[in-house]
């Protein structure tokens, strides 16, 4: 599953990876999401294994642009987020927290977070993020290419 908006700079890394994996992993179920919470949770249902690729804000996460972090969404050490915020701000973290409360997280669920630097309006990824996305595509294609 990829998440992101192709019209907001590095947030388009999810759609970029989706397009690339569509070419390299024709036999794997791929889902593109805009991050809407009920759609995400519905997509989580019934998955044995899920990999979710999304951009994160490098500055907010304290990472260099182009860094890639692999997270186990079932790791109890991951802090739960609250859902007290505006619904406009709900996203992947809230969906994972809600699915965890509902007991509907896939058993194997990896979040692949790619650190981006530019989330302004417009299409196109920054060079660091493109390189990181290509590394992720290569890794996943190698891992699941013969699935």
């Amino acid at each position, binding site marked *: 599953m990829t998440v992101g908006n192709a019209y907001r700079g590095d947030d388009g890394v999810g759609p970029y990876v989706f397009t690339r994996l569509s070419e390299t992993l024709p036999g794997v179920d791929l889902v593109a999401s*805009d991050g*809407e*919470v*009920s*759609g995400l*949770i*519905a997509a989580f249902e019934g998955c044995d294994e899920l990999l979710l690729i999304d951009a994160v804000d490098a500055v907010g996460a304290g990472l260099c642009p182009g860094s890639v972090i692999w997270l186990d969404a079932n790791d109890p050490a991951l802090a*739960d*987020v*609250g*859902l*007290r*915020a*505006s*619904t*406009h*701000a709900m996203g992947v973290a*809230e969906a994972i*927290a*809600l699915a965890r*409360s*509902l*007991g*509907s997280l896939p058993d194997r669920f990896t979040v692949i977070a790619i650190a981006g630097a530019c989330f302004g309006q417009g299409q196109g990824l920054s060079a660091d993020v493109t390189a990181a996305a290509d590394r992720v595509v290569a890794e996943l294609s190698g891992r699941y290419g013969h699935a």
Partner: protein
Amino acid sequence: MTGKDIPIRAGLKTRRIDVDYLARVEGEGALMVDVVDGELRDVQLKIFEPPRFFEAFLQGRALTEAPDITARICGICPVAYMMTAVHALEAMLGIRPDEGIRRLRRLLYCGEWIESHVLHIYMLHAPDFLGFDDAITLAREHPDVVKRGLRMKKAGNDIVKLLGGREIHPINVRVGGFYKIPAVATFTALLDELKWARDAAAETVFWAAGLDIPDMHRDYEFVALRHDSDYPFSEGRIVSSRGLDVEMAQYPNHFAEHQVPHSNALHSVRKPDNTPYFVGPMARYNLNRDRLSSATRKLACEVGFDRTVDNPFESIVVRALEVFQAFDEAIGLIDNFFVPARAAEVVPAGGGVGVAATEAPRGLLFHRYEVGEDGLITLANIVPPTSQNQLTIEEDLRDLVASNLRLSERELTMRCEQAIRNYDPCISCATHFLRLQLRHG
């Protein structure tokens, strides 16, 4: 926490509630309540989200761009903004789409009401009634309830996605109709899930009616659209519970917007006495109960809601009834699908003044455009439901605080927030947490 000092005369006891950032609402707002010597002195619902200048953005743009620009005002109710622009400009240009387009527009509205109402009922408002901080903690104790809400919301999303092109900020709406009409089979493919969701909506009504609902009654002036035959979405006259009954174009003669120092959103009042009024599900319901489907009316009777609702805390039940109504109507529209003669009418050249009001999930939404003969917008005025309800929300809080001063700091704050959420205010686009300061003089 603002921590402002309050001037206090010697011997007076002062209590101040400051909720710096309202949570589980759309956007950036705050609440301030001052109580001096046991008497309520002031209540302010502060909206400090910066002005967004959409009316200015529209100036100089082609009238055909208005739906897509105004859709960006809200990620929860973009359909209402798009459709109000469409209706205003079609009225100006004399465009009258056929019955097939009219029905598809109603279907699109059904989808948006479902998305918005279900989100509010289950994710934002239910935790107040059940004593949880948020929907995540609610989900731990009541997973089946939250799962039901999420699945219902997705059913609404699917309608908007099919007809609008995507769930949020649809792209298939245009002046004159739609860019493309999906195949009939794609609508009928939704029916099984919509029928499940209608049953779930009935369960939601019973569940909501069984919540522990605070008792509070006020004498409101309810304002909503009223149509000749249908529960109102985007057609009809503007009516009120105190006898107003006017065409949409007369809106500016009966309602005014004022700026107040503590809010970046304008306050709307009724002319000529500058009195507050109430828009939204309860207003629609009270003024249009006879326009509900027979199934919705029957359901309302079963939960004791075949009456005027003047307790704002009961809005959660009214929203649930409107969700049922929306699923019921959506199923009927698809079961009796009426294929439009064409996807859109031709948009003729020309300008003038276009006015429309529609029923956004949160209430009456008014648009007015002035357009030059070159088809470019020269002036736009948009009055969203939340600005119309602001004064009423403050009045509710005055009554609520005055009659609940015995409550603890935490209880009173929670009750005030719950009261604000009765209106599902859409301040727009932000995330914050709650801090409280209670001052004793």
